[in-house]
């Protein structure tokens, strides 16, 4: 009986670990974006499992988010079965903002983080001096966020600000002007992740905190297998049924696989000058998502 169990476990682990190794190999050779073929000067990067020119990625991602903006929140609930709400709540609890905090929420989109931040300050500290600047490269997503805030208690408190900005170049955000910088489920869509983290370092005040909530790598082979099947076989189908857009959700699950592992991303944060505590990250739901945190000290 136990031999059968062991064999089954081996069968489950082997193809999974082979695929992970293959993907890591693929990833480490392609993610630094140098095209080895004739066109050696043209840099490429990944767009899901496809390779595209670096300049193209931004507009492709823009198209994806313009398509999904209307049903973004519904799809998040359907795909994660509501678990994304728990992750975001945990993210804000990990942040534990004090009264009067100035937050810069990058790739803020539909405003999940900004809203929770303001709720936390109001409910825990009875504070209404905390403020959040919501920034997103995609005006459609920002519109959804603005609409949401119109019906929230913060519609007229003057605590929110909305700007269309590129996370790699926050031209309208001055140096050392924010206490906390957050980017939730946005950084993996950026073409140059290191530049985003560098900009974060620039705009944070000394002592400020960089926090990132993003999908990450699942270590556990059994959960990993279930997660793979769910990602590739259920999510695009859900995207087609609910939003009539299979391709955007196919991109979503592929982009998750192409993003850094927890340790690699923590190292990238440290490379840009942030100081991390312990490993620099906290796993959520077996590593499906992770909260990375760094301090500018």
């Amino acid at each position, binding site marked *: 009986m136990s031999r059968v169990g062991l064999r089954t476990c081996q*069968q489950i682990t082997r*193809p*999974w670990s082979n695929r992970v190794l293959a993907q890591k190999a693929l990833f480490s050779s392609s993610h630094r974006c140098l095209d080895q073929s004739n066109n050696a000067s043209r840099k490429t990067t990944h767009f899901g499992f496809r390779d595209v020119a670096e300049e193209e990625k931004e507009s492709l991602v823009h198209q994806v988010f313009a398509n999904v903006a209307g049903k973004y929140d519904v799809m998040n609930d359907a795909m994660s079965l509501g678990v994304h709400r728990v992750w975001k709540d945990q993210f804000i609890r990990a942040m534990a903002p004090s009264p009067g905090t100035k937050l810069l929420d990058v790739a803020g989109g539909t405003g999940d983080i900004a809203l929770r931040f303001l709720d936390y300050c109001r409910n825990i500290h009875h504070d209404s001096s905390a403020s959040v600047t919501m920034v997103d490269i995609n005006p459609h997503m920002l519109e959804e966020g603005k609409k949401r805030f119109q019906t929230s208690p913060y519609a007229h408190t003057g605590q929110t600000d909305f700007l269309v900005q590129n996370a790699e170049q926050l031209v309208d955000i001055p140096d050392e002007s924010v206490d906390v910088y957050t980017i939730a489920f946005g950084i993996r869509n950026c073409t140059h992740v290191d530049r985003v983290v560098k900009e974060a370092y620039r705009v944070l005040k000394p002592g400020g905190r960089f926090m990132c909530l993003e999908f990450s790598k699942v270590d556990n082979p059994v959960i990993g297998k279930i997660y793979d099947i769910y990602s590739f*076989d*259920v999510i695009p*189908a859900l995207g087609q*049924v609910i939003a*009539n857009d299979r391709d955007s959700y196919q991109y979503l699950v592929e982009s998750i696989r192409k993003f850094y592992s927890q340790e690699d991303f923590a190292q990238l944060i440290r490379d840009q000058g942030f100081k991390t505590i312990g490993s620099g990250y906290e796993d959520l739901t077996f590593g499906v998502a992770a909260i990375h945190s760094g301090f500018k000290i």
Partner: protein
Amino acid sequence: MLPRTLRQWSRHAGQHCLAKRALISSTHHAASRQPLYEHHIPISCVERSVLTVGSALAAVNNPLRGDMVATLGETTGTLFLKRMRDTMLASKTGRQILKDRPSINTSSLDFDQLRLECAPGTFGHAYISWLDEQGVTPDTREPVRFVDDEELAFVMKRYREIHDFFHTLTGLGVSVEEEIALKWFEWVQTGLPMTMLSSLFGPWQLSWAQRATLYSTYVPWALQSGAACQPLMNVYYEQKFHLPLDQFRQELGLIPTPHSL
């Protein structure tokens, strides 16, 4: 006949799923399979089940989601598409159609030419007037995506494209009960599960009066007519535009549609 078909269907689906599951554990997910034709998206057994259930719910919830009806047809249709293809292979014109792979859209058919050439009373004239009246073109059909065989995908595509011809031949319009009546007709002709589901569950959205008309007038006609006329998939419609409509209907063996008051 129906129970045997259902048994065949469930056995086939079970074997299909087992084969697919073996494929999953070796290649991990079907995205590693190559597309067999334009728009083809190879999907795994799990995804097929999710899409079947999801599209069925979405179609019942919002009958205007034509893409969901199409998806449901594709994910459930394999066995019956094979039977349709075999019926086509058994007839000379059917074989010709499978060989020629004709397509019906505004670039393959010269509509202006047809408008000039087809005299009133011909099949072509009736078809084009119907299209103009409804304000539709044959270009609005969903592409076939989830059928894992290139020839069967063509059969499905052909079935979708000749749907408008069925409207012309039977004289049924696009009101909801007439579309459902046509679905009953297609169910008898093709056996496709999607037609069965539309026929059985489509009437839920109708009023009692509409349902009364449907079941008393149209459904008996559809069952008789569908069984009596020759397999409509075997007809090379592109060669029949100049035939007088009544003659064409007689040749096919179509029982005239009763029109309710």
